[in-house]
């Protein structure tokens, strides 16, 4: 992948995270940026769950393949 392709995909992910953060926080009528950042962190944690599980499965499979 070229650098511009990585940039495009990162921008798309960032735009997606921004939309999710705003939609999850705006009804709470926050008076500062802090609640937005907290929601963003929580969304990233939820996003990290499948990434963590996939990474774990990949690691286990790699270990098994090495053992055989």
């Amino acid at each position: 992948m070229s650098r511009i392709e990585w940039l495009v995909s990162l921008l798309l992910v960032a735009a997606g995270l921004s939309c999710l953060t705003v939609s999850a926080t705006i009804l709470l009528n926050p008076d500062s940026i802090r609640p937005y950042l907290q929601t963003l962190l929580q969304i990233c944690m939820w996003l990290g769950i499948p990434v963590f599980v996939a990474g774990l499965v990949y690691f286990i499979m790699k270990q098994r393949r090495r053992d055989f």
Partner: protein
Amino acid sequence: MRWNRIVFKLGATIIFLFLVVLLPLGFVIDKIFSGFYFSQVQEDIERLSSRYAEAIAQSNNPMAVDMIEMMAEFSQVYLYIVDAKGKIVANAGIPSLPEGTWIPQEEIDMLARKNSIQKEYEDPLSGNRFLVSGKPIITEGNVFYGGVYVLSSIEAIHQSVQRVRDLLILSGTGAFFLALGFTFVLSRKLSDPLIAMERATRQIAKGKLDTRVNVTSGDELGSLAEAINDLAKNLQRYHDTRKEFFANISHELRTPITYIEGYAKILRDGLYESEEEKKQYLEIIHQEAKRLTRMIEDLFELSKMEEGKLDLHRERIDLAEVMENAVRKAHLRVSRKGLKIELDIEDDLPFVYGDGLRMEQIFINLLDNAIRYTEHGKISIKMWREEQNWVMIQIEDTGIGIPEHEIPFIFERFYRVEKSRSREYGGTGLGLAIVKQLVEWQGGEIRVFSEVGKGTRFQILFPAEPAKSGEAER
């Protein structure tokens, strides 16, 4: 940008699947939320109307209705209260239903029967629509006193639902962007090996046979990359072999012709000193002509075999007898070189189904090779039954041996282990290629084991022909 690419197709498929899930899910979430919100509002106004009706029923104060009207106005609750005849006696926030107007008779009848009322009402003055909950006022003595109606604006509910719906759409868009970003990376990562393989195969097709694909995974894609690399290697080898074949064939044919031409010229011009010398030159011409004939015959046979045009007269044959004939023919040359030949054939060796002459040709070629590359020692031949249904033939010599890296190529045409001394050893360079073809044509397998300086062992396996009655005691 070319859209007909695997990365776009893969990405579009993933996004399509994502939308197939996301859109119905969004619709269902919207429905669940709207339904939940409406039922919540309905419950609220029912609870409120019940509470007001109970408050009026339990109060002895004649001002209770006015107090509740005032409280409702103060709390911005839409409400109207009717008496037992259906006349509106109090109103808060509904200008189209002023005090003194009447509600429909069937409603007052329902309230009188202690039933609740749920309905929608459209204000004719403002055009606003309301959810309405009506409760009967029943006093302690079970006397019907009238009813309390509490209203909630549907427009307000719709506005709230719309706001949530907008946020749902925004979060859906966010999820779409997120999926798009990850899908882009994923589809590139999945399609990159395919694209690399496509480029490599194009390069190979253009003749750049040293092109290789980088094998990064152990899955089917990795296997495909390995297959492409193997194909490229085979093509490269085929290409090199063909080049080498043409170079060899021209060299191998030119050499005896040069000899014949040279010595014939000497004889024609009388450039010899004695009869003995003349005989020697004639012998060389004869030998080279024989060699040339044999080479052409071998080449012709080999090409027939490779084209699948070889005629085999297959029958049940006794390999022991065939081997004994081949050994008899080779015996003279073995003795001339001072070598020993050992023959060890197992009793009751089963017959095999093959062409006797071709079998003899196989054995003669292998013996010829063994004699040619063995200076001291012996040639041992063993034949035995292997795993019931196979016959094993082993020809082993104590010759110069074959380096390990050259073993895979010894069955190729004109491949010689001792390239620099090929004329000294003689042979056409086609013998082993013919042997391999003949063995495989007759359903057999040939294997070779060798060690430099110690010798070479050829093993041939042929499927045994099931014994007919009376032949088992052969």
